């Protein structure tokens, strides 16, 4: 019986077609996606990697809210010009705690994977208030309202809890102190500042990101996030042999 004869009979059965479509369409995804979870070379190990602090996570959520990913990628490819322009190429482990990833698909502006601590806080604040003040030909929109909008912190514990539910290892202590830590990280003179470095590591940046320690604004969160990009782990800066199974 020819293949078309077989099809001639199958296209008379709705359920036959439905099952056929589901089976045929499932194979590709299964072969490509399932192994990513079982082959351990998919993600390198980086034991010293730290988590996003509540303030940085809040900043990341603002970055998502404003659709920054539409114009800025966070993925430096293994190409010579990209490594020369932006820094060491991105490793899988660097976005291990990114739910979702923000690799992006378009660069209307430059890649941001290693922007952390490349510019001062003041530069970022000025750039976000009006991009054309620091980069005259920029076509980026202004985000001046970030500076005048108070950051919503009271539910950051819930955010950390949801992050833990999807696999980010936040501790009970981190969840309980999330709101205070957000305040402490942007207010170095406060009593809460010490707790941030205790929980997230000595290298955690604690400073008034928007230049005004008394207020906790969305600008604080956004700049804190931009300044940690590429700095959760230094695995990418080590010699390639140490970086794991990267080809």
């Amino acid at each position: 019986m020819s293949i078309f004869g077989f099809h001639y009979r199958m296209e008379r059965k709705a359920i036959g077609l439905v099952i056929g479509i589901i089976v045929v369409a499932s194979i590709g995804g299964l072969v490509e996606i399932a192994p990513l979870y079982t082959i351990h070379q998919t993600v390198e190990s980086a034991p010293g990697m730290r988590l996003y602090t509540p303030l940085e996570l809040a900043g990341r959520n603002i970055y998502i809210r404003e659709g920054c990913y539409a114009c800025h990628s966070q993925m430096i490819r293994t190409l010579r010009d990209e490594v020369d322009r932006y820094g060491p190429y991105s490793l899988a482990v660097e976005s291990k705690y990114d739910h979702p990833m923000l690799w992006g698909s378009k660069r209307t502006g430059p890649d941001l994977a290693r922007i952390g601590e490349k510019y001062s806080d003041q530069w970022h604040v000025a750039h976000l208030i009006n991009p054309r003040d620091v980069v005259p030909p920029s076509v980026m929109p202004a985000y001046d309202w970030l500076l005048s909008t108070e950051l919503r912190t009271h539910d950051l514990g819930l955010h950390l809890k949801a992050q833990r539910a999807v696999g980010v290892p936040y501790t009970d202590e981190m969840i309980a102190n999330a709101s205070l830590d957000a305040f402490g990280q942007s207010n170095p003179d406060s009593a809460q500042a010490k707790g941030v470095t205790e929980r997230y590591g000595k290298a955690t940046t604690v400073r008034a990101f928007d230049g005004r320690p008394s207020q906790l604004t969305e600008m604080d969160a956004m700049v804190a996030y931009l300044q940690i990009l590429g700095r959760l782990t230094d695995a990418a800066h080590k010699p390639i042999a140490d970086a794991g199974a990267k080809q």
Partner: protein
Amino acid sequence: MVAQLTRNERQGAILIGLVVAICGSVLGVVGRDDPIGIHGALIFVVGILTIFLIGKDYYAPEPSEERFASYYDDPTKAGIVLAMIWVVFGLAVGDWVAWQLVNPNLTFGGGWSSFGRIRPVHTTAVIFGFGGNGLIATSFYVLQRTSRARLPDQLSPWFVLMGYNLFCVLAVTGYMMGITQSKEYAETEWYADIWLVVVWVVYFLIYLRTLARRKEPHIYVANWYFMAFILVVAMLHIVNNLAVPVSIGHAKSYTLFSGVQDAMIQWWYGHNAVAFFLTAGFLGMMYYFLPVRAGRPIFSYRMSIISFWGITFLYMWAGSHHLHYTALPHWVQTLGMTFSLMLLVPSWASAGNALLTLNGAWEKVRDDATLRFMMVAAVFYGLTTFEGSFMAIRAVNALSHYTDWTVGHVHAGALGWVAMITFGSIYAVVPWVWKRKSMYSAGLVEAHFWLSLAGALVYVFAMWNSGIIQGLMWRTYSEGGTLTYSFVDSLIAMHPYYVARAIGGLLFLIGGCIGAYNIWMTIKLPNPISEATADQPEPKAIGASPQPAE
């Protein structure tokens, strides 16, 4: 409209309205200090409006048994009108966004109008608002004709159409308020995603139930494509949107996947949203309307079979070519590239099948702008699928990825293929469902065609230029071994092309407005003609007798 519903269906509609209103009020109260609260209020209002609308005419006489002798086209009519509203809105927002890249101060100052929030509004309005409504409307039309059976009931098609549009409104208003999960083409948050699953399951059941009533032994080719579209989009949507909400009172959720796995699943979704929403669905349209309008049978039935299963199987592998040279393991990237190249065969089988069907009907293509819309759509489909396979090659992708070339490519597909096949199908179907002799003005269809073609070409050529210039500038080295251009240099070089793109988009928008006007005037034409004199004589819904459940 309510008069078409039976008493049981009216009760069902009120019950649905009640459930929707309750869900809305829960979200509105629990999420009152979060943007989700505004959506809760919106959902509540929609539920109440439904109850009011049905309740107003609740005691109107029930429809007569005669309805079973004809097809049920009211949802198709509403879907076409909604599609045209969405396309004018979506294209207008798209052109506005394009001008923002020429002058970034073209906002109204607030967050809602900045590029990052408006760009997904444009994408969603045109793909899901215009494309989705066009697909739902035409699929109901095609399903009934090719099965010679009436839709199984009057309520579920309305539920699908209205529920789907509620989803689109939630999406678009959500992005303006900053509600997004940042997954491209899947930016809506958890509650809208769950709602879409409910709507989609009902859509699929309508298909199965109508097919079960069909009077034709074979399931027509267009319906294979519509079924693959419904089934696989459901699969993709559910997996890609698995997430944990912060709480029931928060719009925000965190996706189950992270980093490299999330990237793979996003592009498995994203590339196949193109495959099964923007390709398979519209191929369903093409396989019905193009042969009917040309008055010729499809060129090759066997090519249809090969193309259908080829697309269904091969496309699902191709998503990873979006991640060349990234941290995704090399073997997955290579698989994605290989299957993308093989995809050219089934894609061109369908494009060729369409064009060869027209062989012998070229004088109709010359005289009839509606058929010309479909012909040009098939040409763009062929060109874009070739370009897609080409761009999946690693070396090409290294240049094209992250640049405007990709934007040009997707718009060649969206403007040239998706929009043109939809416009062609709508121009064909409008006189048929409204029982008019022809469109209000053939000249306006002609004008729309040339504006669309010109707009698409200007847009695509501008983006090809800017994309390739960008890619080349970023990788140019001086003799001293350093990068020649800064990023800002490439940005300045883009300016003229961004102006050209915005003008191309404007031409396309003007065409869309003319189309909407023409369709509106056709609907308003007096004196519906009898079915016998409509330019598309249709088979009757013979023997679509009442079923036990009705």
